[in-house]
C-alpha cells in the first residue's frame, strides 16, 4: 500500500480535472475570486466608459433666446439665454463659459465685426450642473459707448440704401456662446495623453450667426 502511494505520486499519475479541483478547492477558489474581481472591475470600467461617452451625446444646450432692447436713456440692452440640460448621473463642472455678441459688417479686415459686448466666466467660479439637472444661463450686456452706437446707426443708414429697414432692435446680431466643461470627478490633468482629457471634456457651442444681406 505504501509502495503504491509513493509510486503514484512520483510518477504523477494524472487526476481528472474535476477530482483535482475538488481536492485543491482552496487554491482554485483563490484563482476564481481573483478572476471574478477583475471581471467585475472590467465590467464596471466598461460601463463607466460607455456612460461618459454617452454624456457627450446627452449633455446639450437647449434652444437659446436672444433679445435687443433700446432703453429710455438710449442704451442698447442685448440679452442671451440658454439652458444646459444634463440628464446624466455625472456632475458637469464648467471650466469656462463665454458669450460674445457682435454684428457682422464686412467680409474681411479689422472692422469686419462691430463687437458689442460679451461675458466670460472662468474656472475660479466653480460653476456646476448637478447630475440629472438643468441650469439656465441668462446673460446681458449694455451698449453705452457712443462710437459703437454710431457704427450701428451708420449700418442702419446704409441698410436703408440697400432696401433694409433696420432699427437697433432688429439688426441681425450674431451671438457666440461656448461652454467648456468636465464630466464628473474623473482625472483630467494629463499632459502627454491628451485623449484622456478630451474624453472628459465637453465643448458645447451655440452660434447664432447672422449677417446683413448685402454682404
Amino acid at each position, binding site marked *: 500500500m505504501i509502495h503504491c502511494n509513493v509510486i503514484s*505520486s512520483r510518477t504523477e499519475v494524472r487526476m481528472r480535472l474535476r477530482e*483535482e479541483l475538488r481536492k485543491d478547492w482552496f487554491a482554485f477558489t483563490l484563482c476564481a475570486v*481573483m478572476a471574478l474581481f477583475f471581471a467585475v472591475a472590467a465590467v464596471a*470600467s466598461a460601463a463607466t*466608459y460607455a456612460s461618459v461617452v454617452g454624456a457627450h451625446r446627452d449633455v446639450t444646450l437647449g434652444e437659446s433666446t436672444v433679445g435687443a432692447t433700446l432703453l429710455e436713456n438710449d442704451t442698447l440692452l442685448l440679452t442671451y439665454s440658454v439652458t444646459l440640460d444634463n440628464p446624466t448621473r455625472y456632475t458637469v463642472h464648467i471650466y469656462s463659459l463665454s458669450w460674445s455678441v457682435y454684428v457682422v459688417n464686412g467680409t474681411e479686415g479689422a472692422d469686419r465685426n462691430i463687437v458689442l459686448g460679451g461675458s466670460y466666466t472662468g474656472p475660479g467660479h466653480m460653476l456646476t450642473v448637478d447630475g440629472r439637472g438643468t441650469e439656465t444661463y441668462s446673460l446681458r450686456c449694455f451698449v453705452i459707448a457712443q462710437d459703437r452706437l454710431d457704427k450701428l446707426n451708420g449700418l442702419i443708414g446704409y441698410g436703408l440704401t440697400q432696401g433694409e429697414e433696420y432699427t437697433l432692435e432688429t439688426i441681425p446680431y450674431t451671438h457666440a456662446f461656448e461652454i467648456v466643461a468636465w464630466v464628473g470627478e474623473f482625472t483630467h490633468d494629463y499632459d502627454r495623453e491628451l485623449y484622456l482629457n478630451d474624453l472628459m471634456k465637453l465643448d458645447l457651442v451655440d452660434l447664432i450667426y447672422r449677417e446683413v444681406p448685402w454682404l
Partner: protein
Amino acid sequence: MALTADGLKRVVLATFLGAPAIAFMSFDFMFPNLSTPSLDKSVLAVLLISIVTGLPAGYLTRRIDLALLSVLSYTAAGYLIGLLMYSSPYLMYDIEILLPGLYYTAFIRYTVILVFIFAFGGFVGAVFGGLIRESVDREETSLTWRDR
C-alpha cells in the same frame, strides 16, 4: 505531446481564470482615469499582475507546453475582451464611430506592447505555478510517507 481532452479542459479553465485580468489591464492602460481600481499606467504593476495571472496556468496543467498554450490562450482572449470593452459605448448606445480604423488603431497602438508583457509575465507565472504544484505534490508525498 498530444493535446488530450483533459488537457484541453485545463487550458479552457486557465483561459477563463486569466482572461478577465488581461481584459481589465488592457482597458485600464487605455483609460486609467475611468477604470476602477486603476493601475495608473504602471508597467511594473502590469507585469506583477501578469505573473500572478499566469500562476493558475502552471498550477493547473503541470505540463509546460499546456501551460504556455494556456498563457497564450488567455492573453489572446483577454485582449479581445479588452477590445470589446473599448467598443462598449458603441455597442450599448446608438452612437456611430466616426473613424473606426483610427479608433481601433489607437487602442492597439497604446496597448500592443502590453501583450508582450502579459505573455512574458504569464510564462514566468506559469513556471512559478508549476513549481508550486510540484512543491504541493512533494509535500503531500512526504506527509503520506510520514503517516504510513
